[in-house]
């Protein structure tokens, strides 16, 4: 059975402790600690030793998604602290200004493919240039972003084919035309199933739909994600 969990930011924006409590109540063992906003990063990393994460078999940290070149070294410094040393770090390619600084994370660094608003990291060609600069980095496949960029899922298939060996985490949600992460729709489910066979069963899957205001609920989204990543027979990418 696929390990499916949640991003803390999707469950309780800016309140990872509350999100973790919610997950524990639902016996979820996969989690991504979200620090999408800059002001969330330092409190999160500082708190890591005190958080009860023992029930989670997979835990990653999502680095801030928006900062400039001046802030880059500060972000890296916080992520390099000993408290964060055991965790994979998901980062968006458009905030990697100085690749040499990010190389220190080696295979712990997970590069995520981007949505249509971004001018980098959306396609195989665009992501390849990032991996060329960070050859040890792994791949975080955001299936919702890939569908938004190409609803036929052709590019998604090519992303999995090109970077399948680097695949370390999957993000799943419906990404709407305004690039907001919504609960998974039937159309998205059908699209995601087209490439599910190229996602190995043991890869951690992180749900990102915002459900902090009752848009859906945790169990429903896990069920939908499981359905969306079902496939009939395995195939080589």
């Amino acid at each position, binding site marked *: 059975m696929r390990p499916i969990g949640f991003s803390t930011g999707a469950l309780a924006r800016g309140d990872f402790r509350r999100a973790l409590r919610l997950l524990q109540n639902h016996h979820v063992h996969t989690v991504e600690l979200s620090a999408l906003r800059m002001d969330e990063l330092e409190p999160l990393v500082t708190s890591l030793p005190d958080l009860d994460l023992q029930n989670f078999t997979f835990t990653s940290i999502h680095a801030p998604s928006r900062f400039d070149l001046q802030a880059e070294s500060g972000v890296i410094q916080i992520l390099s602290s000993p408290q964060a040393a055991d965790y994979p770090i998901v980062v968006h390619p458009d905030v990697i200004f100085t690749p040499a600084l990010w190389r220190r994370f080696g295979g712990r660094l997970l590069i995520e493919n981007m949505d*249509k*608003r971004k001018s980098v990291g959306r396609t195989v060609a665009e992501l390849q240039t990032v991996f060329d600069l960070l050859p040890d980095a792994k791949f975080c496949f955001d299936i919702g972003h890939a569908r938004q*960029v*190409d*609803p*036929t*899922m*052709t590019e998604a*298939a*090519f992303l999995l084919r090109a970077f399948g060996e680097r695949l370390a985490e999957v993000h799943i949600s419906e990404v709407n*035309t*305004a690039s907001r992460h919504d609960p998974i729709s039937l159309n998205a489910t059908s699209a995601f199933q087209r490439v599910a066979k190229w996602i190995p069963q043991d890869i951690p899957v992180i749900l990102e739909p915002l459900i902090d205001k009752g848009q859906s609920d945790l169990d429903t989204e896990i069920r939908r994600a499981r359905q969306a990543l079902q496939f009939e027979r395995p*195939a080589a990418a």
Partner: protein
Amino acid sequence: MREGQSSIERLESRLGADWAAIRKAREDTTSRRQDLDHLFRDRNSPDTSVVVFGSVARQEVTSSSDLDWILLVDGSAVPEHKKQEREIERALAAGKYIEPGRSGVFGKMVGSHGLVHNIGGEDDLNSNTTRRVLLLLESLPVSNREAYDRVRRQIIRRYIEDDRGLLYASGAVRVPRFFLNDLTRYWRTVTVDFVYKQRADDDHKWALRNAKLRMSRKLVFAAGLLHCFFCHLDEEASAARAGLRELDLNPLTAYLEDQLSKPPLEIIAEACLNLQISDVTSRNLFNSYDRFLGILDDKGKRAELAGAHTHEELRNSKAWDEVREVSRPFHESLISLFLREDENLKNLTLEYGVF
């Protein structure tokens, strides 16, 4: 393909030919494209693309080429799209671009929904078919291309996904018949509409329109047919064919997307180079098209064609005589290409192109 050399250049060199008008049209196209990119360089809208059609997309710009365009919208409908449409109109008018024709097919915003969903059926109006087919066969995004790429790929995907024969047939031949039939339907519609416009427009620009029908419109259709047949014949499509056997449609989608991004003349040159096509046929095809582009690039001849519509005017028009001189060998060479020389292409044309 040799590094840096187009198939047209390779063919030209092989035949020892000199296609100056084709070369000039390609150079003028490069310059026109740079101007357009500059004009729209500040556009940044992932939901919309400015798409141009016709000679700019075919790499056949001549001195009086007009500019057919649409604002392609693929996303939520917002009132600002109308503003974008007006800004494009203004920018092109300021750049002294010749406006699109009066058909109403171009020069406006167009949503993606109809293009992707209405393939066939009563909602597939002439304008929708025209935009859809030309979006595949002769279009070019200016500035940001995200919406353009998304929509084109979805249309291609529909032609593949809905073609049960292509996906499930037991035979070895893999030709996208649904796509081919739509291209054929479009071409026949263009020819019928030519006669309709002859009545509706009181023969306005009859000779110029007829010249384009005999040459550039026919070229686009011929290239479209080759796109379909190359799916079966082209060595580079072997992975796509193998993918189909596994019901993996992605390689064929990518192959067609790549092929369709090439100008029609380039596709014809690929056929001349890679299939069993005689030098005589290749030379006649390209010599006549080269002469045709030369006629269109000559402002005097073009004006003469645009003004000639009565029998008397046509009889006295040297430009019209020239068009007839080049269009006949062009037509004959296309027949040789498809039906006389390469056995495989001939068999596919007979099997798929007639009934």
